[in-house]
Each structure stands twice: as structure tokens, then as C-alpha cells.
């Protein structure tokens, strides 16, 4: 079942002398909600997502999941990355079962448990193959199975589809929210793709940069599944685009762009 996530006055600096990457971020995400976090590259959105996963601890403030402060990663709040990062010495089903093995299940039990998940994600004839022979989209599906296998309360997505071809991307943009809705999983996606945000989220948070703050918020009250050609989709897209432009702090932001980029990649 989905969990709530609250970000309490989070400020983050990568070193004490550096300018803050994130400043005074304070927001709450409800159980089962689907939220997109958008902003220019270098605005700290990915840093914020790493904090939600417990992979990074904020210098000030804290992140709470179901009111409990998190201090380390857990398979219950699980992150998917831009790269699938599968383990090439394991088969597809072993990769998908890895989180369950870490949770203490034997390999046989874990592999059996992920079987229906692989069927659902269209990998039924790939279970035993080497992951290196899969396409990018199939690899990302294995990573999705791996994330879902541990029954997460929260699924964190860090631009997970940006390296995929358009067809696969569109399919996954439709499938992932459907799975999360069905299972009540709280979903948070970081993206710089406005279409992706409108296609996948109930609510979009827009971040500014230098320092990274949440400056705008937009509800996307469209029915599921969402079609890119629908009028409603196009209206929300326009609105999001306008709000996004409104937050652009122009030349100043662009000048400091490179510096923030570097500090973020250092994370």
C-alpha cells in the first residue's frame, strides 16, 4: 500500500562552502499520489529524489515516509534510474528477484515470486536469457520488475525512460502509472519532459534553480489512460509550459548553470 512522503524544510549543500543546491523545500505527497518533479537540468530535482530514496541525507531538514524520518535506503521506497543497471552475470529472472533475495528469500523462492511480474511486463519468453541481449526497453522493464518485486510503498523514477525510443517510452508512460494505481503505490517521477509529466502525474511540481526550490504546482485532473492527442492533455501541457517559462530566472540562472551541473553530478 502506498505511503505518504513529506519533505520538511530540506536545504542541501554538497560542501559547507558551496551555495545550496536545494533550499527550503517543504511539501507533502499523499499515499497513492502520482507526482512529477520538473525543472531544468541542474536544478537539484534528481538530488531531491536521491534523498527520498535515502541514498543521500539532506544537510538540513528531513524526509519522512509515513511520518518516520528516513536515514537509509530500503526496497520499500525504491528508485529506478535512467540506466537499467542490470547485473550481467544474472539472468532476467534473477535480476528481477534480487531485492527479494536481499530481503532473505532463497533464490528459488524469489525467482518463483517474480514470475507473474515478468509475465505482466511482457517478459514471459525472456526469463532465462542474459540481460545483455535485451533491448533498452526490455532492460528497463526488467528494472521495473526488480523495483516492483519488493512490493514498494513508493516508486521513485529518475528520468527512467529518457534513453528509450519513442514507442517504448509512450508504452511505459502508460503502463507504469496504471501499475502504480492498481497497487496503490505512491509514484514520484523526475523528468524534464513536459509531456511525460502530463502523461504520468496527478500533480506536477516545478522547480527553479540556484537554489533549487519548488516554485509552482499544477494539478493534472485528466482521466486515465491519458492520450497525448486529447484536448485536455494539450491544454494542461500549454499551461504547464507557461508556468514553467514564468519560473525561468533567465540569464542569471543560465550563467550559473554549469556550476550547479557539476555539483549535482558529484552526488
Amino acid at each position: 500500500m502506498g505511503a505518504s512522503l513529506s519533505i520538511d524544510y530540506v536545504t542541501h549543500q554538497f560542501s559547507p562552502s558551496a551555495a545550496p543546491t536545494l533550499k527550503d523545500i517543504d511539501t507533502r505527497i499523499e499515499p497513492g499520489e502520482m507526482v512529477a518533479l520538473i525543472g531544468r537540468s541542474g536544478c537539484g530535482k534528481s538530488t531531491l529524489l536521491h534523498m527520498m530514496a535515502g541514498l543521500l541525507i539532506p544537510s538540513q531538514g528531513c524526509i519522512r515516509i509515513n511520518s518516520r524520518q528516513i536515514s537509509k535506503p530500503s526496497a520499500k521506497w525504491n528508485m529506478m534510474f535512467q540506466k537499467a543497471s542490470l547485473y550481467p552475470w544474472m539472468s532476467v529472472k534473477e535480476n528481477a528477484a534480487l531485492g527479494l533475495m536481499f530481503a532473505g528469500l532463497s533464490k528459488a523462492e524469489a525467482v518463483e515470486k517474480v514470475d507473474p511480474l515478468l509475465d505482466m511486463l511482457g517478459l514471459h519468453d525472456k526469463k532465462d536469457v542474459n540481460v545483455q541481449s535485451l533491448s533498452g526497453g526490455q532492460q528497463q522493464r526488467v528494472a521495473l520488475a526488480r523495483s516492483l518485486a519488493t512490493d514498494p510503498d513508493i516508486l521513485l523514477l529518475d528520468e527512467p525512460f529518457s534513453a528509450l525510443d519513442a514507442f517504448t517510452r509512450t508504452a511505459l508512460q502508460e503502463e507504469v502509472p496504471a501499475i502504480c494505481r492498481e497497487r496503490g503505490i505512491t509514484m514520484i517521477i523526475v523528468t524534464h519532459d513536459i509531456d511525460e509529466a502530463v502523461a504520468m502525474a496527478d500533480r506536477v511540481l516545478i522547480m527553479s534553480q540556484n537554489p533549487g526550490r519548488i516554485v509552482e504546482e499544477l494539478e493534472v485532473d485528466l482521466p486515465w489512460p491519458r492520450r497525448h492527442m486529447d484536448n485536455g492533455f494539450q491544454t494542461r501541457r500549454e499551461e504547464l509550459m507557461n508556468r514553467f517559462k514564468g519560473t525561468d530566472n533567465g540569464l542569471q540562472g543560465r550563467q550559473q548553470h554549469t556550476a550547479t551541473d557539476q555539483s549535482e553530478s558529484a552526488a
Partner: protein
Amino acid sequence: MSAGTTTSTSSAVSLFAPTKLVRLLSNLQYPAMGITGLLFLWWIGGLLIQNNENLSAFSAFAPAPAFQALYDLVTSGEIWAPITSSLYRILVGMTWGIAIGVPVGVTIGYIGVALKVANVPFQFLRMISPLAWMPIAVMAFETWDSAIIFLLVMATVWPIIFSTAHGVRRIDPNWFKVARNLGASGPQMLRRIILPAIMTDVMAGIRLAVGVAWVVLVPAEYLGVTSGLGYAINDARDTLSYDYLAAVVLVIGIIGYGLDSVCNLLIKRFNWHVE
């Protein structure tokens, strides 16, 4: 009728899988040429020795007496004792080398600073011939056997350490991130991620180490001990049985080649890189 005969002939031929046999033979073609060339040079050398009156005492080094001696050693069973002693030392030496080298390699590879600190002293120690430790080994260990094993460990740890550390450095940082994210504990990270990820590099280090150990073992066995292939060579020299000496050299080469082939097979077995 004739058509039926043709069919049965062709199916009989396919039963013998001629393509497989042909492939095997063609794979062996170049190694066979190499071996023949070596034997030819050896034979020429034997002839030259035989025809030089200053060297004729050594004519038993030639292929024919050597193979006769090898045949005698194998049929009498005499060869097995030195082989067993030598292989036992290699096995114990390699076990220690791996037991020390892999953990040290993982540690210095995992902790970037440790690699920087250890690099110079380790490279320095690596370049010292293991045999140079002999006097110290003899003083430090009670038996010649353990002294020799110590030398083998000194020979084998370095390639294993460096290869392992290199393997750890090469691990995709995202593999750590994903595993942490999935809730891996320290031991789980080691067992499921780090060890399989570095297995190919560790095996490559072991292969190098086996080669060095086998080369170091023979001179190490010249000293003190009364068993092993190195001792057998020394013994043959002392009794002027040059045909036996040549036979033992052959055995050393064959076993060395065998050990390397086994390591190579293991590397292929553990290699997960797509060709």
C-alpha cells in the same frame, strides 16, 4: 534401390559428424605445427651436441633418450611422487595467495585512498624476486616445505591483489547504488554484487599467479627439500642422468601448460562479458 543406399550412406556419415571432426582437426593444425617445429629444433640441437666432442657427454638431452626416460618414469610410476609433491606445494601456496590476495585486493580497490597508499609499496615488493626471500624464509619457517610455500605466496599475492583491486575499481558505481537501493547489506553486497562482478579479473590474476608460482617452484625446490620436480632435476644432474633431466623438464612444461589451460577454462566459465 540405389537411391536408398545413397541415403543410408549419407546418414551414416552424418552420424560421425564429419564437420565436428574436421573442425577439431583444423583447430589442432597450428598447435601441431608449433609442436613439430619445437621437436625439430630439439632434435637438431641433440645432433649438434652429439657431434661436438666437447659436449657429447650431454647427448642424452636429445629427444629420443628423453622420451625413453619419460616412458620409464611413467611406467615405473617414479614420476608421480615428485609431481604430487610439487602440485601440493602449488595448491597450498595458491590457496594462501588467494586467501590473502583477494581480500586485500577488494579492500584496496574499494577504498580509493587505500589503493593510492598501497600502490608504491606493493609495486616495490612485487618486483623483488620471490627467491630473494629464501634466506629469510629459511630462518622464519621450521620446515623447508613451509619455506617454499612462503616463497610461492610471495610470488602469487601480487598479481592476485592487483588484478582484484583493478576489478573492483572497474565496477559500475550504479551497481552499488541499485543494490543499496534494493536494501543490500554489506555481506550481501559482497556476495551478490562485488564477487561476481570481479570474478573474471580475479581469475585472470590467479592465472598470472599460477604461471609465476610454477616458474618459481622449480628453483625453490633446488634448496633443502628432497621431493618435487625441482629436486628431481637437481638429482638427475648430480647423477649425470641427462635423459631423466630432460624428461623432467618435459613434465614441468606439460604440467605448466595444463595448469594454465585449467585457469583459462575457469576464466571462460566465470566470464560474463558478452564477446
